[in-house]
């Protein structure tokens, strides 16, 4: 290996130094050889150009920036693109912009073609590419890690997580974490050019943002995600050989020079990170294992594990919130009181006789508490009072002149994103209702997780669901109904602790079949929001109580003053019991006052029990009571 490298160096460097021109007679040979080998439609070439098969034949390249293609029809013709790329390698005329030289823009393609065609570098010498070299040199990658930033529950949009790459200057974590902050992070994200929320949502869903690959010092992401967004980071060290790592960096340079239409649902951050890995290491099968229409970041982490041996190690980097909880847990009662007091007044006197480790621990916890509560405001210069308090706590801590013991949290196996259930769920059920007799039920949910689903790898106190439809067929009256159909349904439970008191809330939007006298059996549009408080971890139980407002509308609805719209106001309660990972039980009740409508009130009582049999299968029992009907069902849940 080293001899080959030395030979190449000897062969190539003098040529590059002399600036020899490529041999033009060599090009037709190479092009012919490429055609004979059908290289243009080989898996390696297709992955490098990110061409995907179209439904009715042909190819479409995912990259949308024109400079990514040298052939005029390159986006849809990988063979022509290969021929044009080869021709462009032989074009050694000086260029105004280094990236106009194909050799400088496409180092990964070059390496691929050199290998596949056995190109003689004496006849096609390397040319100087200073910007490319500067990037490769700055990155100095010896290994790669896939990083998953977890959710922050108070921001449901972060629930799906984010994946990006870290290019490591050391092959393995050298002596722990000290080197990692200085590594290079690379991600694919949208270049957002609007401050309008609706435009943002529309553009994100319909590919109207440009997505680009970015790189930065990894510390930026650690600070942003772990410190200011309270998101844990999961780092999956990848077992790539040096050639694959080199290919990855070279290919990221290629991708960096173009853009992709950013599609929030499928061609998002996770999708393109996997695409880059697959291009660099053709032995990997990653995209095959993620959804076709919706790609969730947690799915991409699971895809890593479908390649045995790809994940060398998993590291856990707790967010500041997790660190704070750990620091608090390690203090005794006096230490905790001290920490809370310090967070309110940095000069607060500490109890006499508090042992030094507790003093140290309480000051450290107080500093983290101030950061969790006010960190972002302090950073943005919006809270002078808290900035001064933080400074005072830190100064007081430094005066103790003893180092803090390292926090060293063990990796929480329960929360590993690669252990999560499949994000899609299909339910099949049968049962009976008092009014309609026997029932058959089919429920399909596109994504993501509810409060009774298998808990591993998902937020335990949040329910986030997209596109959940339940069809209900009653054979006796021959009625097929959309029992419920939700575009989005979110419930976020926040604990009330001494550290923070945050309200819990829920929201849902979709359609529901009315089961009270207002319009029995009608399908109405439904929008509901609720806010309240939750008590979590009362033994195996979690309790949520909210006050809700619900709006329903449909032509036949006996609504507000006879109109087709009605408002419902009232409380609802939810009690959830969990026994380990296998069993979950929920009882839910809600009552609605329907002002100036007929009837004046409505209610719902529901109970559900679920038993998780495996990663893909659960069984459930449901019972429901509404003003007009009672029903009970047994269901099978299949995750995919």
């Amino acid at each position, binding site marked *: 290996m080293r001899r080959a490298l030395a030979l190449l160096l000897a062969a190539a460097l003098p040529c590059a130094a002399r600036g020899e021109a490529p041999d033009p007679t060599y090009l037709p040979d190479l092009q012919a050889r490429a055609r004979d080998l059908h290289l243009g439609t080989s898996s390696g070439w297709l992955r490098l150009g990110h061409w995907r098969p179209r439904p009715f034949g042909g190819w479409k390249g995912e990259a949308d920036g024109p400079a990514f293609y040298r052939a005029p029809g390159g986006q849809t013709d990988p063979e022509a693109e290969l021929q044009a790329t080869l021709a462009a390698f032989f074009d050694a005329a000086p260029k105004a912009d280094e990236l106009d030289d194909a050799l400088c823009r496409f*180092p990964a393609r070059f390496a691929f073609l050199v*290998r596949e065609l056995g190109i003689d570098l004496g006849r096609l010498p390397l040319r100087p590419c200073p910007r490319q070299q500067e990037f490769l040199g700055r990155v100095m990658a010896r290994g790669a890690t896939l990083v998953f930033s977890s959710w922050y529950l108070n921001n449901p949009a*972060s629930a799906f997580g*984010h994946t990006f790459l870290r290019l490591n200057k050391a092959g393995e974590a050298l002596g722990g974490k000290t080197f990692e902050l*200085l590594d290079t992070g690379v991600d694919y994200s949208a270049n957002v050019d609007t401050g*309008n929320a609706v435009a943002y949502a529309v553009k994100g869903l319909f590919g109207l943002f440009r997505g680009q690959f970015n790189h930065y010092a990894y510390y*930026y992401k650690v600070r942003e995600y772990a410190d200011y967004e309270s998101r844990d980071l999961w780092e999956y060290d990848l077992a790539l050989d040096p050639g694959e790592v080199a290919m990855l960096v070279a290919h990221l340079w290629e*991708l960096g020079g173009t853009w992709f239409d950013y599609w929030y649902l499928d061609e998002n951050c996770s999708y393109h990170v996997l695409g880059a890995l697959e291009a660099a290491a053709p032995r990997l099968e990653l995209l095959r294992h993620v959804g076709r229409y919706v790609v969730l970041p947690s799915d991409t982490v699971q895809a890593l594990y479908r390649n045995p041996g790809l994940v060398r190690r998993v590291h856990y980097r707790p967010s500041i919130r997790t660190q704070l909880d750990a620091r608090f847990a390690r203090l005794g009662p006096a230490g905790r009181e001290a920490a809370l007091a310090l967070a309110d007044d940095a000069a607060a006197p500490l109890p006499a006789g508090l042992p030094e480790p507790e003093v140290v621990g309480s000051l450290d916890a107080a500093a983290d508490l101030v950061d969790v509560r006010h960190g972002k405001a302090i950073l943005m210069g919006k809270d002078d009072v808290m*900035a001064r308090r933080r400074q005072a706590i830190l100064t007081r801590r430094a005066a103790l002149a003893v180092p803090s013991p390292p926090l060293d949290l063990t990796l929480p196996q329960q929360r590993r994103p690669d252990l999560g259930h499949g994000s899609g769920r299909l339910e099949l059920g049968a049962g009976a209702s008092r009014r309609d007799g026997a029932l058959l039920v089919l429920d399909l949910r596109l994504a993501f997780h509810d409060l009774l689903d298998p808990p591993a790898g998902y937020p335990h106190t949040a329910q986030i669901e997209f596109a959940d439809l339940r069809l209900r067929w009653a054979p006796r009256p021959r009625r097929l109904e959309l029992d419920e159909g939700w575009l989005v349904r979110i419930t976020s439970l926040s604990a009330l602790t001494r550290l923070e008191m945050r309200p819990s809330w829920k929201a849902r939007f979709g359609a529901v079949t009315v089961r009270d006298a207002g319009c029995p059996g009608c399908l109405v549009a439904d929008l509901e929001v609720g806010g309240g408080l939750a008590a979590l971890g009362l033994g195996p139980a979690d309790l949520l109580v909210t006050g809700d407002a619900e709006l329903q509308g449909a032509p036949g609805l006996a609504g507000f003053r006879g109109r087709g719209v009605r408002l419902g106001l009232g409380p609802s309660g939810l009690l959830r019991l969990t026994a380990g990972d296998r069993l979950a039980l929920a009882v839910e009740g809600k009552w609605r006052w329907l002002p100036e409508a007929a009837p004046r009130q409505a209610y719902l009582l529901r109970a559900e029990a679920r038993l998780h049999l495996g990663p893909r299968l659960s069984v459930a029992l449901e019972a429901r009571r509404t003003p007009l009907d009672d029903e009970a069902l047994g269901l099978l849940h299949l995750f995919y």
Partner: protein
Amino acid sequence: MIRSAKLFAVLALVLAAGSALAADSGLKGSGRYGAAGCGLGSLIFQDQPGMVQILAATTNGTFGSQTFGITTGTSNCGAGMTAAGTRNFVDANKDALAKDMSRGQGETIGALSVLAQCKDSAQVGAALQSNFKAIVPSDKATADEITSKLIETLQADKALGCQIAG
């Protein structure tokens, strides 16, 4: 086997050439940084309306910042083994660094020891902790001020064996 060796050799060649450059300038930044500095506030968090901030988590959008583009090459806010690289590091990690310094240990101190090429990060932590008030005199201390005081402290204590140039 031979083919992959050749592929590796070609790429290693490309990287080696780059590393040759890097020996002089690679890990080191160019010394220039964007007018807005390399802090989190200016680069990562900007003032956006609340709803958009919430949605931003979905695309992890960078709000038009070109600083981090791969080929646009304006990423001068990187880690570099010079005062400029240290300054960038302090700028981006200011609050976390202050906290770690007050504790006499932490990941940022480890990274700083690598940047300044010091011998032992535990000793560096102790030195920075005992000089905390001088290095971070107030909450208004700028990254520049902290960096110069920090470098002064590291250079003054020969036992730390740091290689950072002032």
